[in-house]
């Protein structure tokens, strides 16, 4: 029950109500009983039809009765009836629906039946439906049944009409709705679907595309200048800017002989959904065997502490075989496989687009110092076990069909422009949480897109300062900002380590040769120095 105030009537009132309802219950239950009797006996006659009318007028959520009503029409009424009669009959059905819709504007079943009527009626009037849905959205501009129904009607009109003008028409409709109320999220959403289509349909040249996108930025700008606390326009703004797709690659893979561990270094943080597979070849047999063990990563966890664990997003992933599997240590070759569907990045624009397979040969080494053996991509082996579902990576990018055609240099220019726009607004609204987090997002994206060799500390400083402020301003979501803050600090120091290392292998060699210390401590020392803003 939604939005019905709780009342505790007196015993007397309760008694009266129950007496009154007793009669109604009896009538209603009699109707239901005769309806089901007819249904069981396949009696598709007008008597049955009238009963369904009576029941549904009182209780439009009784889906079985709707189903029966359709069966009566199909198997009774429409047998031997002319097209005109069918048209009339379904016409009055539509009127009936309009009546009960007034009592219950959020019933799925009423919309389902309406769609069925229109798909069954010989000559559907989709323009009338469009006018109807206009009214519906005038009454409640966020009714998602209304918006769903509108998209449905438009798709029907599109089938027999001029597609281009309809997309423009619908786009203009969202403009009207947004101008009536900037916080109509449903309209912004609809716009995000229409804008890419509109650009495609109109076959615009680069300059025209630029203009149309700039007009969007003007519209959002006037929205968040009107009400900087309204999230709709800010979320749309995030989408307008978009994000550049980045491919995850592996920077290094090593086998640490002393610890018998595999260490992977990626150029972005990833989480593991399904364990990467490790295999070996032994001296005795030529078969390839699976090695079991644990994968752990190094990363920041809730609350910003750096930790090692199996459910953490990290740049480093370390595999320790289970003890039984390393006991027969006579393997001569070692491999691992990472598939795109086994990893998860924190956003869909950072992706692994191909399978990573690497391996190395392990010789009985006389040189103890060679604790680290690089695993190279030369070896490709057959997949041993196939448990996960293989999903093409373009699925992840389904969204890309729905993003705007903005190339990298344009996006950089856009980011620079928007960063200064938001900074201006921030002068007026220094404590606007949406303004602040948008600026942090833009700066992060700017940093990410540039991905320059020298990571500029002052950019990180500014982002950290914004998150510090947000933690105070938006207490409800402080933990999210704490996470984002730790993440950017950690990411920054790791990136600096990776980028400044001339030779990652020798750098790793050095870390690992300090055998007295354990992994976590070494990594902590390296990456988790308390963060100070630039000196």
């Amino acid at each position, binding site marked *: *029950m939604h939005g019905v105030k709780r009342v505790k009537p007196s015993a007397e009132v309760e008694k009266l109500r129950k007496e009154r*309802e007793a009669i109604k219950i009896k009538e209603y239950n009699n109707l239901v009983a005769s309806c089901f009797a007819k249904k069981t006996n396949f009696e598709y006659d007008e008597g049955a039809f009238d009963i369904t009318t009576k029941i549904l007028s009182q209780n439009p959520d009784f889906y079985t009765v709707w189903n029966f009503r359709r069966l009566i029409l199909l198997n009774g009424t429409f047998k031997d009836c002319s097209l005109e009669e069918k048209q009339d009959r379904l016409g009055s059905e539509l009127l009936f629906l309009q009546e009960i819709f007034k009592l219950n504007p959020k019933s799925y079943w009423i919309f389902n039946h309406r769609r069925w009527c229109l798909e069954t009626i010989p000559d559907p009037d989709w323009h009338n439906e469009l006018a109807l849905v206009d009214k519906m959205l005038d009454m409640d501009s966020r009714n998602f049944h209304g918006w769903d129904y509108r998209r449905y009607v438009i798709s029907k009109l599109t089938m027999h009409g001029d597609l281009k003008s309809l997309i423009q028409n619908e786009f203009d409709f969202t403009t009207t709705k947004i101008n009536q109320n900037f916080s109509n999220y449903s309209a912004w959403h609809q716009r995000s679907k229409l804008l890419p289509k509109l650009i495609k349909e109109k076959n615009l040249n680069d300059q025209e595309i630029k203009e149309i996108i700039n007009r969007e930025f003007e519209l959002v700008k006037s929205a968040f200048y009107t009400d900087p606390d309204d999230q709709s326009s800010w979320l749309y703004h995030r989408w307008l800017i978009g994000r550049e797709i980045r491919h995850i690659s592996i920077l290094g893979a090593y086998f640490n002989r002393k610890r018998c561990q595999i260490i992977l270094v990626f150029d972005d943080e990833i989480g593991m959904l399904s364990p990467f597979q490790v295999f070996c070849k032994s001296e005795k047999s030529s078969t390839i065997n699976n090695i079991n063990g644990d994968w752990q990563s190094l990363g920041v966890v809730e609350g910003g502490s750096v930790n090692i664990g199996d459910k953490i997003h990290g740049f480093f992933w370390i595999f320790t075989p289970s003890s039984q599997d390393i006991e027969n240590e006579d393997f001569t070759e070692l491999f691992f496989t990472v598939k795109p*569907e086994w990893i998860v990045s924190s956003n869909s624009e950072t992706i692994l687009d191909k399978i990573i397979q690497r391996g190395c040969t392990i010789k009985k080494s006389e040189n103890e110092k060679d604790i680290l053996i690089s695993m190279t991509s030369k070896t490709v082996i057959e997949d041993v076990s196939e448990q996960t579902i293989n999903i093409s990576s373009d699925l992840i990018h389904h969204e890309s069909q729905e993003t705007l055609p903005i190339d990298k240099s344009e996006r950089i220019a856009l980011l620079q422009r928007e960063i200064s726009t938001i900074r201006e607004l921030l002068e007026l609204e220094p404590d606007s949480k949406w303004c602040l987090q948008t600026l942090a997002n833009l700066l992060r994206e700017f940093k990410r897109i540039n991905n320059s060799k020298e990571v500029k500390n002052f950019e990180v400083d500014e982002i950290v300062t914004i998150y510090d402020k947000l933690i105070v301003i938006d207490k409800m979501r402080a933990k999210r900002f704490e996470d984002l803050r730790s993440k950017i600090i950690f990411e920054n120091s790791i990136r600096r380590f990776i980028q400044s290392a001339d030779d990652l292998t020798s750098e790793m060699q050095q870390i690992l040769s300090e055998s007295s210390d354990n992994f976590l401590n070494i990594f902590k020392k390296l990456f988790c120095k308390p963060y100070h803003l630039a000196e």
Partner: protein
Amino acid sequence: MTSIEKPNNLLVDLHVKYIQSLDTKKDDLEYWFTEHLRLSGVYWGLTALDLLKNVNTLNREDVVKYVVSCQHDNGGFSGHIGHDPHLTHTLYAVQILVIEDALDSVNTEKIVEYVKSRQDPQTGAFTGDEWEEIDTRFSYCAISCLSLLKRLDAIDVKKAIEFIMLCKNFDGGFGNTPGAESHAGQIFCCVGALAIVNSLHLIDADLLSWWLCERQLKNGGLNGRPEKLEDICYSWWVLSALSILGRLHWINKEKLIEFILAAQDPESGGFADRPGDMVDIFHTLFGIAGLSLLGYPDLKSVDPVYCLPKYVVQRIGLAEKYHI
């Protein structure tokens, strides 16, 4: 409002009594108007009781017998005896039978057949029944149901995922059909379904979790879409999705617990959509499940993907493969 009207602790005994009393309200018209929700009501009530550590309040034999009587020749279940079969009710039936450890009392092969027949081989979408309404809710029902029956092999999982992904939006959320606006209920369905089929990598976790945690309003409650009112049922859908995505801490738990507790009826038990409203069994389950997910004491843990007590999911040997 006085503090008595806004409870600040969990009224376990009252809720048990409230759920017990539901089948004694035959002199209310509402009881008869909601007959099509009888089977789902049993699922909501039974799950709530189990989380409240009172699963035996409902007689197991009666419950199983009733569920069995809702199965049809085509394998599907209806909302009540004699009503028409539907995919959502089929999931409710399987959930109840899993809680009662009574799957052997029905023909599960028939259920698998029914669920399988609901998939459109072209698009991968699922229809609710033969009248062909399409909705990502039904994708969840099918995937959850077959996963509980360990028969995901019966459907085209890849196609099912492809359809769900067509419903993804600019905010990282999901709608009921391609093109439809993001909605917390649909997000729960899509994230849950993707979790079951090991495909959480397709989700934009940071973006979606951001949208989800912005659902929390000043009063601590959560809404289901921007600029809408808070509601207990949305708190469950938002929370479960955040929990699956490993970001439950992105909302303020204390404030939400306060809000959920305040939505209890301090006299007759049960939870309403928000404080001061009429209670119902649907919101009662989602209030309790939400509290369980938030770590409220004295409740059994709930599984965010299946919306079943965790021990039940473990008992049938389903691995916890989410929390990224």
